[in-house]
């Protein structure tokens, strides 16, 4: 994954269409199936891009999403039917990741994105004004600042809305018109923007978090919902963590640290056991911490462990390197979670074979 040409001027995090340019090119060349209007790839090729595979010419496509193929198929089919796609799930289930890659594969542009916050205003979804020009020239097309959604409509590409449920309800409703009529009127200019074919919206949302605004059923009706699950099996999760950690380390230009599969497996095991509230062998009940303990957090625990070992350790990922990140990831609520964590350490980690180093490392930082 390491790209020798990378220099210090490279962005910290390249967009999906930049990072996987070669794969997208190869897919485009190999793809002979019918493409919906304005799609850069056929639906089949989009699924292949997400799920990975080997093309006829031998190009290996790396899997972007490790999990159920059917889920991705439903998502792609939804976008092909011009219904908007809503990716729903707890934090860290690769919602944004999938949404970015879908946009990159379908439109070759994952940047038409609105990050939903409680402060998101209607202008961010429809259009705003360049007030200097507005005052100087009066209302004109030049004074208008289109939103990413409006740009996507004009180009016939995919717009992404992250954390849709964080956006206030009345602002969310601005989407209804766009999604049902595929038109954005600009009354100030007496104009309207009609979406080109290929335009669609991928929204991600978290239905369980604090401070969210439920979607109205009018809006909800315009979305097909795909619920992103936490990984089914331990092997899948280890696989996800390993792949992502390798990606991240190379893009962060961390010094090479031999990927310690054992350490990754241990972190994943701890996360899975705490999340499900029972040990992997099903024999011991555990308290579940309040945090969601998602795969994304497991990835960040490992990445920070690698950074620690590279800069301060002996260059091998040791239990002590992950321990610090681990405690931070598990203990979100200083009281309840600390109880759950120390119980886990004493009851499970202490007894387990080969975990003594990990146990004492955690005891030290807890």
């Amino acid at each position, binding site marked *: 994954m390491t790209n020798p040409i990378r220099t210090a001027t490279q962005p910290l995090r390249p967009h999906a269409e930049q990072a996987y340019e070669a794969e997208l090119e190869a897919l485009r060349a190999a793809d002979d199936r019918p493409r919906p209007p304005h799609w850069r790839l056929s*639906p*089949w090729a989009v699924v292949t891009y997400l799920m990975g595979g080997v093309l006829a010419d031998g190009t290996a496509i790396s899997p972007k999403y490790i999990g159920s193929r059917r889920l991705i198929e439903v998502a792609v089919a939804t976008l092909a039917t011009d219904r908007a796609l809503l990716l729903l799930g707890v934090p860290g289930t690769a919602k944004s990741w999938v949404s970015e890659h879908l946009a990159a594969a379908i439109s070759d542009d994952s940047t038409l994105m609105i990050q939903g916050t409680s402060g998101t205003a209607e202008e961010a979804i429809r259009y705003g004004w360049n007030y200097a020009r507005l005052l100087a020239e009066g209302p004109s097309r030049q004074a208008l600042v289109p939103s990413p959604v409006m740009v996507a409509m004009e180009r016939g590409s995919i717009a992404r809305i992250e954390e849709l449920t964080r956006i206030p309800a009345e602002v969310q409703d601005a989407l209804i018109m766009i999604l049902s009529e595929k038109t954005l009127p600009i009354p100030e200019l007496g104009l309207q923007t009609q979406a080109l074919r290929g335009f669609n919206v991928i929204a991600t949302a978290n239905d369980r978090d604090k401070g969210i605004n439920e979607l109205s059923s009018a809006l909800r009706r315009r979305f097909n*919902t795909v619920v992103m699950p936490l990984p089914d099996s331990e092997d899948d999760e280890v696989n996800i963590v390993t792949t992502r950690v390798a990606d991240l380390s190379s893009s962060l230009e961390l010094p090479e640290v031999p990927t310690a599969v054992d350490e990754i497996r241990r972190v994943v095991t701890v996360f899975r056991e705490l999340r499900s509230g029972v040990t992997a062998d099903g024999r011991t009940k555990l308290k579940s911490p309040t945090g969601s303990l998602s795969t994304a957090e497991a990835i960040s625990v490992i990445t920070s462990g690698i950074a620690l070992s590279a800069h301060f350790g002996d260059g091998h990922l040791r239990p002590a390197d992950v321990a610090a990140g681990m405690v931070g990831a598990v203990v979100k609520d200083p009281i309840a979670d600390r109880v759950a964590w120390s119980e886990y350490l004493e009851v499970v980690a202490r007894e387990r074979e080969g975990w003594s180093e990990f146990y004492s490392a955690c005891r030290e930082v807890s």
Partner: protein
Amino acid sequence: MTSTLSPPLVDDHVVDPVAENAAGERPPVEVFGIRHHGPGSARSLLAALKEYQPDVVLIEGPADADALLGWVLAEGMTPPLALLGYAPDHPQTAAFWPYAVFSPEWQAMTFALERGVEVAFCDLPASAMLARWGRSSPQDNHDDLEEPADAADEAPPALPNEQQDPLAVLAEAAGYDDPERWWDDLVESRQDSSSPFPMITDAMAELRMIMNQGRDAGREARREAYMRQKIREALKRGRQRVAVVCGAWHAPVLRWPLPPAAADVRTLRGAPRRKITLTWVPWTHQRLASATGYGAGVASPGWYHHLWITPDQPIVRWLAKVAQALRVRDLPVSSAHVIEAVRLAETLASLRGRPLAGLAEVTEATRSVLCDGDELAVRYVTDHLVVGQALGSVNDGVPTVPLEADLVRTCRSLRIRRDPQVRFHDLDLRRPIDQARSQLFHRLRLLDLRWIMPADSAVQSQGTFRETWQSRWEPEYSVAIVEASVWGTTVASAATARVHKIIEQGSLVELTQAVERCLLADLPRALDGLLATLADKAALDADVVHLMDALPALARAQRYGDVRQTDTRALRKVSEVLVVRIRAGLRQAVASLDATNAATMRRRIDDVNTAIGLLTESASDPEQSASMTQPELRARWLGTLATMIDRTDVHGLLVGRIVRLLLDAEQLSDVPVRLHRALSAGVPAADKAAWVDGFFADGALLLIHDAELRSLLDDWIRQLEDSEFVDMLPLLRRTFGTFATAERQAIAERIAVGAEDLDRQRPEEIDLELPAAALATVDLILGGPHD
């Protein structure tokens, strides 16, 4: 039952000339390898049969069930149905062969019968299959019911073993990850009707070359040998177009030309057999679904049923059905949703390169569009539609065990249906039909048929004439009925026989419970023997505790007996004897008990006291010529209790309780003195608390209304030392904690008001003028004497 284990020996030399005479180029035997319970398979099969015009149809199924084929077209025969085979001497040895309307086997049967074509089963007879199985596991545990069902009808197509799924191998070769989907695409979802059977047979032949037969090789070989022999037999009878309908796995080895018969004769020689009775029983879609553990099942019988009955637009019709089901559950689903769901399902199918959207696509569309990703709603759809709730029915004339026939008859006259869904029956025993129902339900309970069980409900508490039951029919109850048929030929006689078994073996408590149930189930013949045994057992049973446990059930039985107009005189006699024996034994029974045992004994004394109260209340029978009158019986009981309260070896809890009982019965005048004495300084604190606990345990009313008693208790608490009070607190709290909050408040208020104010609260002289009019009316209603 035409049960021949070894068909007449047919030599292949005899067969050959027939083959030569066969008309046209078609071979005389055509094998249709089907998938059990596959609608696509059934559709292809029908088309192929129409085209082939067979003169005999042989179907994979127990050959000794041929006689039952005559029922298939009879009125009232609605699939899903199953052939049930059981050993009459050991009904637990049983096996099912289920068929849905979309099962190719069922369609083959109706095809042949409607056209008057000869039809027969060609698999090993149930008598041979169950003989082997029954011998190897003769115990009659309930798990056995599942075993033979799996053994008799293998997963499609009959799998040699689980590790090697032939479908998975084929599906993998075809590039499918899921064998179900592969089969679906290839056969089940087919819209055209070109025959897939030669291709399936060839594929299976390849497969049989590379896969071994696994652990059941011997049994499989016998089954296939038997099927071949049946084919030879049909040819020998001069049939020229033999259609064989069997699981795809068997198809290659039944193909024309058949190998020499000698080897098959050898294989079948000397197989054991046992007497087996076969019948049709109703089946359900739930039981067809593999989710409920039936080996040869399909995951989605409801979906297949839908595919079978829908002529066109299966996807649209299905999603409309789903929308209907969701609307019933108050989920807002509009037609626009359905349109979008159809579009998504079709897009998904084309994305996956499938000819037509299948169950996977419609389910994903349902989840994404109709259910907003809500897994619960999807599960509801799965349970109600994908699996389905259908229940089959059989013609009344279908041979069955006499007990089943009687039950069906009774149920019809009482208008009780066998419903696979949970149903509640609220019975009002004052209505004759409900009383008859109640009797039937109680009889079924005595027979351990769990079809109908007592349930809790609000109306139950409205009176002793109310009962609530809950029913849910499961197909395996057919076997339970067959099992129960060893007890008798009618529900009543079987239940009576069951009671006799209890009479022989039961303990005293079991006997008295049986008495209650006998009365409820109206089994007078069983009751006589039961009461005689009960009296004997009571005489011999030295343990007064057993007697005390037995009495309440008897007293209740007598009470219910009155509601149900049954004769309860004998019952009363036995109860009386029991009371006498209890009185005699109580003296020793209450001595030297620790706290735990004292608590149990207190409950028993309460129960017996209540039971005697019930006996007393039911004493209004003028024909009553018992040795003792009711008040006398009660008085003697209280007299016995009165001898306990001055003893020192009786636990404080019991003494307190007995004093209370006597106080309630107005038998004791010196209660305040006794309370004072029990709570005075000389008694250890723990004993005092126990006494108070027993005395006040179940009622705050006495404390609220009896000022003298209350002030006594109040004084006692005030006199406690600080340390004593702390010691007492937990025990006191245990007693008063059981009072309702309102009661506690009332007591506290009364205490707070104080003694002087209480005088003012005493009711004034009652003014009889004011309620006079009302009293006169009540008098009129009650029909009292007019003055």
